[in-house]
């Protein structure tokens, strides 16, 4: 037999695919493999268990002795001493039960609580068509829950019949709009910020409406002149600016004399707690994303002046602490503005927080843009798409998807940073609100409980954002590998 004959081989039947072998499993095996696989692993496992036990044994008595019904810290301590002996320690969550409304609403007038509730409840109606664009089930759950809870909470918090009736009409109409006409619901989403402003600060509806009108006028000027490129954009900005500075006030007052549409005004110093945090946070998030995109594109631009301006802005803003910017907002800005201008403090803080977050956002998005292969730009160019169409249709959808974890991290960081407004005299929920509550005689000494309460709410909100971003990443996954 020669060598070549023994090498030759012809398969006469193909092997069918078989299922993979089942791995040996079971709790004991898992423990042995993962926790007790060697001396070092055993030591670390035991150390971990020890630390867990220490934490638990310290915290548990304090939590399990907690008192929810009392009128002061002293009463809390009496109840705990009576039940668990004189040396026992316990949490006094009665302070939360008594003062929860201040943590949430600050000094917002008690009979107007329904307004922030409606403003933030309808935030979900505004966002649902965008966030759950191709997931009708999740969308229906979210808008249904938001509408029902908004109504119920407002009723419990003492909104009167007229207010509840108007609210019901608005919520039902909006839900119907979202389900019937998605494209029109997106218009409602664009109008939402102006509606929320009206609800939160009160006054006449026509003021925010005329600000909105400025955007609409600008848009139509741009549309009419769009053949002229950048000139159209400049003209639109000029016309809108002229409207806001010279005309909008007069028109708003004019309409208001005929049809007032007034809500009781609430001033910015009455804001506090989570109403303040969420107002600043949501506005900052909504504004910093588009600004960050523009900055990221500008930083990658071929035009040297635009690129340099973006670099300067980003590096300057990232180079100073947020608190510095907040001080600039609260103190320095007054020196530069004409005397007598009353520029709302919350608006100033929102502007500074937005600028701060947008600088970070720009770098996160620039990372996403840089991660795209050059071929994507070339393919878009080769098909004849101009710069803006290529960015909007091809580049940004992919770059933003890559950047989702970073973008949401920036959002979460910014939302938590809103507690820093305490340094410019606003009542953030964590420090200013708890200090205020401790300043009253009954709740002197309540330290841990407010922090735990405020911390939990922050955790729930931030964890919610984080989960949504993971959901979004899964939904947008396209590589199927």
């Amino acid at each position, binding site marked *: 037999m020669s060598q070549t004959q023994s090498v030759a081989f012809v398969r006469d039947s193909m092997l069918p695919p078989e299922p993979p072998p089942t791995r040996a499993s079971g709790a004991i095996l898992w423990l042995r493999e993962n926790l007790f696989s060697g001396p070092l692993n055993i030591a670390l496992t035991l150390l971990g268990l020890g630390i867990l036990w220490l934490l638990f044994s310290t915290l548990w008595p304090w939590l399990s002795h907690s008192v929810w019904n009392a009128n002061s810290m002293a009463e809390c301590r009496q109840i705990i001493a009576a039940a668990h002996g004189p040396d026992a320690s316990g949490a006094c969550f009665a302070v939360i039960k008594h003062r929860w409304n201040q943590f949430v609403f600050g000094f917002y007038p008690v009979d107007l609580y329904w307004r922030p509730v409606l403003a933030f409840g309808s935030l979900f109606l505004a966002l649902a068509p965008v966030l759950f664009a191709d997931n009708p089930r999740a969308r229906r759950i979210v808008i249904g829950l938001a509408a029902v809870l908004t109504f119920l909470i407002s009723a419990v918090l003492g909104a009167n019949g007229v207010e509840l009736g108007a609210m019901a009409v608005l919520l039902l109409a909006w839900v119907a709009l979202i389900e019937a006409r998605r494209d029109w619901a997106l218009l409602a989403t664009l109008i939402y910020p102006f509606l929320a402003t009206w609800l939160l600060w009160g006054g006449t509806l026509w003021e925010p409406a005329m600000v909105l009108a400025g955007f609409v006028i600008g848009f139509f000027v741009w549309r009419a002149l769009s053949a002229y490129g950048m000139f159209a954009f400049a003209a639109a900005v000029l016309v809108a600016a002229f409207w806001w500075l010279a005309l909008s006030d007069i028109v708003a007052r004019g309409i208001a004399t005929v049809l007032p549409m007034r809500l009781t005004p609430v001033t910015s110093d009455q804001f506090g707690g989570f109403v303040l945090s969420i107002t600043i946070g949501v506005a900052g998030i909504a504004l910093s994303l588009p600004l960050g995109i523009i900055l990221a594109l500008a930083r990658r631009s071929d035009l040297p002046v635009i690129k340099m301006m973006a670099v300067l802005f980003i590096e300057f803003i990232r180079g100073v602490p947020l608190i510095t910017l907040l001080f600039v907002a609260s103190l320095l800005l007054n020196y530069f503005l004409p005397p007598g201008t009353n520029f709302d403090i919350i608006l100033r803080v929102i502007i500074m927080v937005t600028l701060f977050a947008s600088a970070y956002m720009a770098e996160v998005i620039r990372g996403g843009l840089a991660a795209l292969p050059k*071929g994507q730009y070339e393919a878009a*160019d*080769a098909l004849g798409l101009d710069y803006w*169409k290529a960015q909007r*249709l091809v580049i940004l*959808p*992919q770059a933003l*998807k890559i950047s989702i974890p970073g973008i949401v991290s920036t959002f979460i960081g910014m939302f938590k940073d809103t507690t820093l407004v305490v340094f410019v005299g606003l009542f953030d929920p964590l420090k200013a609100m708890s200090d205020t509550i401790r300043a009253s005689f009954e709740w002197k000494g309540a330290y841990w409980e407010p922090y735990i309460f405020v911390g939990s709410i922050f955790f729930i909100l931030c964890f919610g954002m984080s989960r949504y971003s993971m959901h979004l990443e899964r939904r947008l996954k*396209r590589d199927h590998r």
Partner: protein
Amino acid sequence: MATQTQTQPKLGETAIEIAKLNKWYGTFHVLRDIDLNVSRGERIVIAGPSGSGKSTLIRCINRLEEHQAGRIIVDGTELTNDLKNIDKVRSEVGMVFQHFNLFPHLTILENCTLAPIWVRKVPKREAEETAMHFLEKVKIPEQALKYPGQLSGGQQQRVAIARSLCMRPRIMLFDEPTSALDPEMIKEVLDTMIELAEDGMTMLCVTHEMGFAQAVAHRVIFMDQGQIVEQNTPKEFFNNPKSERTKLFLSQILGH
């Protein structure tokens, strides 16, 4: 190659006119005094060793690369810094890349309708019908609703060809369309290109597929060091190469 389609083009109007084209990357002189006229309906294969400037040449034709001296006139429009002219040329000239460059976030159908809808302003319905027509032509209509990541390399390249055709281009550029494909998939892409050739499309292909060149090209251009060294009909080019450089190149790629 399955078919022999070596008819001479009806040499009429000029589709592309390139005169004294020069290009540098920094101080490196990539294209040197290129003169080339392409007639409507003509099919040209550009061959040459790597780094000879053949890809750069066809990428200049739709201005993916900027040239520093000389003139390029495509369909009567000269390529200058004028963005309007560049976009006009790009919408008339289709391009197929080595790495397909499909848009991974869009379905196959959306890849094909994107440019017609946004550049040509074709209504969505009509754009989808056109897209399905060309997807059938490249024989993958059943993949229309999948994403590029779900397709094989050969299928992706055929989608890329269909995507270009949806813009109804008058000229097609192919930049090494089969170089990133497995041998088994090369044939399906070449067959698609041959079919396109039979329809009379003006084509410029940078490729190492010499069989394809022999089957469909009217003219083979051989480039080295940024210059056109030799050009001839495929028959003459392969059987009777004139320059030493060409002979060396052919002996190396056909030698085994």
